[in-house]
C-alpha cells in the first residue's frame, strides 16, 4: 500500500440505495495518482465503452469527489469533483479548497463515487463507520448559507447522539449544491464553505440530476500514513517557509487584481469581453480591503498562505452579504464583466451567485452574454421582464434568480453560454456565437489572450482538454504536465506551489513511488491528458466537438482590443494554428488532435484505440 492513501473509496448507488467500500488496485493508483487523473480512469473503466450514448444527466453518470495522496498532507488540500461534464461532455477535474477533503481522508476514504439517481432528495454522510444515505427533502431548495447552517447542526447532533461521551463534535466538511444545481443549470457549481466552488465542468447540475443535495464527511482518525514521515516533516517546513514569506500575496490574495489586471495587462473581461481594459480606481484593492474585509487572513486546513479574506457588507442596500474577498475571478466576472465598478455591488453579486450555487465564473459569463444580447436588441425587456443595462446590479441580481429558477429566458440561459447561444440563435434567426465566450462549452476564465501580457496566450484555452478553465491551461504539452495536471491529481492548491523539484520530493516522500519530474512529463501526465482528450472527443449525446474546428478560441478573442494601452492587439490566428499543431505533435496526437495508436499503446491506453480508430476515419 503506497503512503498518502486512506485505502478505500465509498461507492454509492443512489438508485439501489446501496453503499459499499471499493478498493482500487495499487497499479492504477500509481499510474493515475488521484483526483483528476484517477477520475478520468474510473470513468473510462466504468462507462467509457458507452460514453457517447450516456448523457451527463443520465443516472449512469458517476459523480466523483476525490482526494489525492497529497491532500491534507501537502499544504492547501482540496477536493477534486469530476464525472462526465454536462458542458463539455468530456471530463473536467474541478477542484475546491475545503475541509471536506481532509475530513474524508480522516474518515478513512480517498473519495466518494456516486452513481444512480435517488427517488427523492438525499445527502450522503461519511464517517468512520462508513457511508450513509440520508433524507434531504428539508434542505432541498435552500440557498448555500441555510444549507450549511442546517447540515452543520443536524450532523453534529446525530454524531453526538451516536457517540455522546467522546467530547464535543465539531462541524463536518461539506460539499453541496444551491438552487441552481438542483434545477440543473448546466454550468452550476459544487459549492463548499458558502463561497468556495468547484465551478468548472457543471458538476453542480450533475449532483442535481441525481437528487443529491450534499455530501458531508466527519472523520475522527488521523490522516493516512506516509512513506517517509521524517522527510515529509522537513519538506512541509520548506514549503511552509516559502509560503509565509510571500507577504504581499498573503495580505492581498488575488483581491487586489480587480483593478490591476484590467489597467496594466488589459486582460480583464469588461461588458462580456467587449473590452479588456479599464482604469476604474474605485475598483482597486484598497477599496475592498479597508471597507469590506472583516477577516484579513482566512485559510483552509493546513494552508499557511491564507490568501482568502472574508468580506461583509455592514450597511447600505446590500447589508448582510458575506463572501470571501471576492477573488480576482469574481471581481472580474461579477464586476467589470457586468459593467459594475462598485465594490459593494460586486460583493453582493458574488455572494448571491455563490448562495444560489451558480458558478461565479461560468454562470456569470452566461449572464453577461445575455446582457450583450440585450444591448444588441436580440433579447428584449419581454424576455427578461426587466431592463438589463450594464452596471445595473439590481437587474443582474434578478437575472441570477431567473436562471437559477429557470424562469422565462432563464430557462434557456440555464443551458450555459454555448448551448444558449445556439438556441437563441435559432429562435431569433441571428448568429449569437460571436458573443459567446467559451471553448468547447466551458466558459473562459477571466484572463484574456488578446493583449498577450497575462499568463494566458494563444492556445492556452484553445488546445486545453478542459476548455476555458483558467486553472489548467495548455502551453507546451510537456512542462505543463507537472503543473495543474499534477496538482489536480495530487489534489492540492496551485497557490501553495513550490519549485517542481521540491514538490516531487514531497510527493515521493508521501507515496514512496518511483516517480520523477521526467516520468510525469513523459508518461503519467500525457496519459491523463490523452485519456481526457479521448473522452472529450467522444463527447455526446447532445454535442460532439469537431476536432481542430472546435479547438479554437471564441470569435471575440480574434477581434482587436478596442481600448487601452494595447489597443489594436489581438490573438494571432496563425500562431494559434502552428502552436496547436506542435502541441498535438508533442503529445503524440495526429494532425487533428486525435491520439494515435502508437501513443495509446505507449501510454497503456490500448483499450481506448477502438473508439479512436472510428474517429480517425
Amino acid at each position, binding site marked *: 500500500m503506497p503512503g498518502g492513501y486512506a485505502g478505500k473509496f465509498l461507492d454509492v448507488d443512489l438508485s439501489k440505495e446501496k453503499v459499499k467500500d471499493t478498493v482500487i488496485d495499487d497499479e492504477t493508483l500509481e499510474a493515475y495518482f488521484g483526483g483528476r487523473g484517477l477520475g478520468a480512469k474510473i470513468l473510462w473503466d466504468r462507462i467509457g465503452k458507452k460514453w457517447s450514448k450516456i448523457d451527463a444527466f443520465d443516472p449512469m453518470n458517476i459523480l466523483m469527489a476525490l482526494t489525492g495522496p497529497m491532500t491534507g498532507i501537502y499544504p492547501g488540500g482540496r477536493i477534486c469533483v469530476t464525472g462526465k461534464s454536462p458542458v463539455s461532455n468530456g471530463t473536467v477535474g474541478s477542484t475546491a479548497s475545503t475541509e471536506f477533503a481532509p475530513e474524508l481522508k480522516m474518515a478513512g476514504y480517498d473519495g466518494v463515487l456516486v452513481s444512480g439517481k435517488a427517488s427523492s432528495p438525499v445527502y450522503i454522510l461519511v464517517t468512520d463507520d462508513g457511508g450513509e444515505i440520508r433524507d434531504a427533502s428539508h434542505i432541498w431548495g435552500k440557498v448555500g448559507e441555510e444549507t450549511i447552517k442546517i447540515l452543520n447542526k443536524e450532523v453534529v447532533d446525530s454524531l453526538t447522539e451516536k457517540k455522546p461521551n*467522546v*467530547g464535543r463534535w465539531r462541524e463536518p466538511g461539506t460539499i453541496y449544491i444551491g438552487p441552481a444545481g438542483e434545477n440543473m443549470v448546466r454550468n452550476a457549481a459544487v459549492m463548499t464553505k458558502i463561497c468556495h466552488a468547484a465551478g468548472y465542468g457543471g458538476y453542480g447540475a450533475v449532483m442535481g440530476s441525481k437528487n443529491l443535495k450534499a455530501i458531508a464527511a466527519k472523520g475522527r482518525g488521523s490522516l493516512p500514513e506516509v512513506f517517509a514521515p521524517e522527510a515529509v516533516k522537513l519538506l512541509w517546513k520548506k514549503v511552509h517557509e516559502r509560503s509565509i514569506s510571500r507577504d504581499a500575496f498573503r495580505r492581498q490574495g488575488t483581491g487586489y487584481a480587480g483593478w490591476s489586471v484590467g489597467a496594466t495587462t488589459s486582460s480583464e473581461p469588461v461588458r462580456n469581453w467587449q473590452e479588456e481594459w479599464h482604469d476604474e480606481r474605485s475598483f482597486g484593492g484598497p477599496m475592498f480591503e479597508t471597507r469590506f474585509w472583516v477577516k484579513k487572513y482566512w485559510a483552509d486546513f493546513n494552508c499557511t498562505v491564507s490568501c482568502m479574506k472574508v468580506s461583509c457588507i455592514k450597511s447600505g442596500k446590500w447589508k448582510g452579504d458575506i463572501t470571501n474577498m471576492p477573488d480576482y475571478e469574481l471581481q472580474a466576472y461579477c464586476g467589470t464583466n457586468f459593467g459594475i465598478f462598485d465594490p459593494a455591488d460586486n460583493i453582493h453579486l458574488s455572494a448571491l451567485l455563490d448562495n444560489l450555487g451558480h458558478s461565479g465564473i461560468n454562470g456569470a459569463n452566461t449572464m453577461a452574454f445575455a446582457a450583450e444580447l440585450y444591448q444588441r436588441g436580440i433579447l428584449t425587456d419581454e424576455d427578461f421582464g426587466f431592463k438589463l443595462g450594464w452596471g445595473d446590479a439590481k437587474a443582474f441580481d434578478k437575472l441570477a434568480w431567473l436562471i437559477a429558477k429557470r424562469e422565462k429566458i432563464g430557462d434557456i440561459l440555464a443551458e450555459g453560454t454555448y448551448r444558449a447561444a445556439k438556441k437563441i440563435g435559432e429562435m431569433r434567426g441571428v448568429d449569437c456565437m460571436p458573443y459567446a465566450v467559451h471553448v468547447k462549452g466551458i466558459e473562459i476564465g477571466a484572463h484574456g489572450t488578446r493583449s498577450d501580457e497575462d499568463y494566458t496566450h494563444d492556445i492556452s484555452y484553445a488546445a486545453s482538454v478542459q476548455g476555458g478553465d483558467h486553472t489548467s491551461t495548455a502551453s507546451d504539452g510537456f512542462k505543463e504536465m507537472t503543473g495543474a495536471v499534477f496538482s489536480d491529481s495530487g489534489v492540492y492548491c496551485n497557490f501553495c506551489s513550490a519549485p517542481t523539484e521540491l514538490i516531487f520530493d514531497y510527493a515521493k516522500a508521501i507515496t514512496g513511488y518511483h516517480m520523477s519530474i521526467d516520468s510525469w512529463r513523459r508518461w503519467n501526465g500525457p496519459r491523463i491528458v490523452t485519456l481526457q482528450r479521448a473522452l472529450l472527443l467522444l463527447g455526446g449525446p447532445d454535442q460532439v466537438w469537431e476536432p481542430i474546428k472546435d479547438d479554437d478560441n471564441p470569435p471575440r478573442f480574434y477581434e482587436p482590443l478596442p481600448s487601452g494601452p494595447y489597443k489594436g492587439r489581438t490573438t494571432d490566428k496563425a500562431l494559434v494554428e502552428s502552436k496547436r499543431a506542435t502541441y498535438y505533435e508533442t503529445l503524440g496526437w495526429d494532425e487533428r488532435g486525435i491520439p494515435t495508436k502508437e501513443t495509446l499503446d505507449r501510454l497503456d491506453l490500448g483499450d481506448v484505440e477502438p473508439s479512436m480508430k472510428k474517429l480517425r476515419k
Partner: protein
Amino acid sequence: MPFPGVEVPHLCAQCDDYPCVESCPVDALSVDEKTTAVIVDRDACTSCGECIEACPGNVPTLHPGDNKANICDLCGGDPECVKVCHEAKYDALRLVHESMSTNRKLFARDPIDVAKDLAVKLFGEKGEEVI
C-alpha cells in the same frame, strides 16, 4: 467552524479549580506544577468521559487512537502551536504567563458560544443569525 469564516481555537484554559481533575474517579488527571497544564495518565484513564462532562469549556475529547482523555499538556511549557503561529506572523496564539486566578476560568467556554460572539464582531447584525 460553525459558520464559514468563524473559526475559534478551542484549547484548555487551565481553570484555577481544575473541575476535570476533581471529577476523575481514578485520579488519572494531575496538574503539572511548573506549567499548570493538565497531565493525563493514559494507563490509568478508563475512558469514562467524566472529565468531558465536568469541563465548562467542553475541551477534553477521547483520542480516536487509544480512546483515552485528550487534554493539552502545553508541550511541556513550550507549545508547538504557538511557535508555528508566530512563525507565520499571525501571533493569534500566545503563551500567557499569569498567576492562578478565577479569571482563567472565564476562558473555558464552549466553542459555539465563542463563535457566536465572534460572528457578531465580524458580521455585525447579520452575525446574530448565522450560528
